[in-house]
């Protein structure tokens, strides 16, 4: 364990109690994150990736495990004790419209973050709002607008500006581009990259879009039914995917081919993600796994290292 880790997550689990049944949203996830890095979390719906993001921010309380931020264990902090820390840990939401009050102008929304933390005088805050808007590529006049007047892409820039207004160190990007059009997605990704460089930000980037996660992340974890099935540096993971699920995910992406000859055959795998209420015995992926053997149906594979920083939870991986 290196001491300069900004964030350490140890064996964190989250179970929700829904109608008397346990829903295993996140199961024993561990990772650590150094300053300036981007940690990518990929998975399909129901994989627990968004829940994990909220656990890190303590917007949800972990059922088990420890979360250590800058050497300080924040797992048991109360919401009140967390408040000053929230300046340093921010989140960008998938749907910026839903995350803003329809009755606040954009300027008010961004300023409110600073008001909460009693930053600066009114004039200083207004000046900062102008600067932030400019930094995220919006004209200043936007501060007078209400959320319903802006497009999805503009609103997401506002969401980014609001998160940045507190000078955070860690920013969790929860599917920040999934609701946007392709041409706008690229603009926002580029913005996120520039901001990371300029402000030395650390990102946890949550997305179902593997290509974007690969593009942005240093380390990537693939989640399936709340568990990390594979974790490796981005280049390694995408050039040498080892877990059958990672391989399937990568093969399922329809790339634009260079010519008719390169078109992909549509070869789906069977089945869908099982219910998290009653995850399969043994390896959670075995009912869909093309390679599954008897052992996969009975014994749950432990996570083990198959290379430097490359961990896989699969009996067959080498």
């Amino acid at each position: 364990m290196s001491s300069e880790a900004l964030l350490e997550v140890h064996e964190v689990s989250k179970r929700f109690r829904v109608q008397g049944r346990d829903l295993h949203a996140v199961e024993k996830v561990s990772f650590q994150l150094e300053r300036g890095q981007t940690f990518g979390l990929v998975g399909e719906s129901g994989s627990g990736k968004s829940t994990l993001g909220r656990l890190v921010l303590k917007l949800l309380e972990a059922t088990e495990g420890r979360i250590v931020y800058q050497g300080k264990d924040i797992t048991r902090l109360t919401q009140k004790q967390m408040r000053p820390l929230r300046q340093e840990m921010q989140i960008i939401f998938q749907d910026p419209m839903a995350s803003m009050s329809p009755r606040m102008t954009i300027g008010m929304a961004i300023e409110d973050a600073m008001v909460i933390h009693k930053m600066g005088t009114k004039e200083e805050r207004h000046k900062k709002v102008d600067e932030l808007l400019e930094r995220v590529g919006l004209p200043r006049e936007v501060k007078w607008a209400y959320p319903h007047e802006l497009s999805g892409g503009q609103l997401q820039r506002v969401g980014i500006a609001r998160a940045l207004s507190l000078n955070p160190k860690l920013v969790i990007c929860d599917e920040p581009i999934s609701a946007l059009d392709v041409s706008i997605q690229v603009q926002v990704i580029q913005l996120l990259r520039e901001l990371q460089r300029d402000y030395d930000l650390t990102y946890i980037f949550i997305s179902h879009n593997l290509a974007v996660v690969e593009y942005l992340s240093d380390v990537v974890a693939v989640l399936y039914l709340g568990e990390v099935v594979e974790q490796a540096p981005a280049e390694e993971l995408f050039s040498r995917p080892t877990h059958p699920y990672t391989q399937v995910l990568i093969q399922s992406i329809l790339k634009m081919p260079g010519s008719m000859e390169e078109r992909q055959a549509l070869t789906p795998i069977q089945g869908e993600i099982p219910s998290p209420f009653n995850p399969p015995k043994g390896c959670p992926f075995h009912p869909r796994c093309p390679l599954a053997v008897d052992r996969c149906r009975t014994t749950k594979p432990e996570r083990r290292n198959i290379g430097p920083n490359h961990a896989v939870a699969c009996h067959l991986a080498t």
Partner: protein
Amino acid sequence: MSQPLLSIEDLRVEFDRGEDTVYAVNGVSFSIAEGETLGIVGESGSGKSVTLMSAIGLIRENGRIRSGRAMFQGTDLLKLSERQLEDIRGREIGVVFQDPMTSLNPVMRIGDQIMEAMLAHHFCSHREAFERTLQLLHEMGIPEPKARFRNYPHEFSGGMRQRIMIAIALACEPQLLIADEPTTALDVTVQMQILALLQEQRRKRNMSVAIITHDFGVATNFCDRIIVLYAGQIMEVADTGTFLRESAHPYTVGLKHSIIEIGHRARPLQPIPGMAPTITEMPHSCSFASRCPFAAERCRSELPQLREIGSGHWVACHRAEEVLADVI
């Protein structure tokens, strides 16, 4: 490819939004041949769904068709009454939507909904409809059709619901299937399953498919021919091969460059600047000019017409040839 099954000519659709009129579709013409798979690609607000949906009479209350024709088997769909359209929709033309939860009836067993599709159009007898429903459920890859027949939509996953929607759309053996973003709400592994299912059914039934999508990956891997829409106008039409090799509209080229794919890690991004306009005035110049790196004086003053620059390759750009030369 034979004669066109559906041919849309100079379609114009507008919507009222407050005091403004939004010109959603501005003179769109294209046709779908028998047995063809056509991809209609565009970003939100490009008019990609409105074009096809208004042609088959599915248009929101604040919208109206200003002009145009939609010839389907010799009849102009735009001239038909709602009743006559209902006879065609679901019978000759099947429709699959993005979100099956909103188009399925939540309080009706899914088997009954599939049967209903056949009985409403007097497609077959009650007894036959039942048999066919089981057969359809089986073909759609829904396990244990007999048991699942009696389930309600909420008892299925998103992917399974989409399969049920497809079963309803295919129940009366339509000649044309319109799929409006059929996989957008689904996970990638399920998207692959649904697309494979659509492809298999299309081959088996030899029907035409029009798939509306924002995803170039889906369109290029699935379709024979691709239409790119922007601001309610066709920017480019080409068969997929030509589209992949030599797209000639700066918008298409820009979109292609801005797609992030696996293996792009080290590459710099090339986003298209700006955002798509909402057209509240009839366009008199190229709608894309303000975002276009190739835009010249002419582009800002004269509306480019769709013109054929190669066999079956149509582009609405004054500078298509130069763009093409740059790309190659």
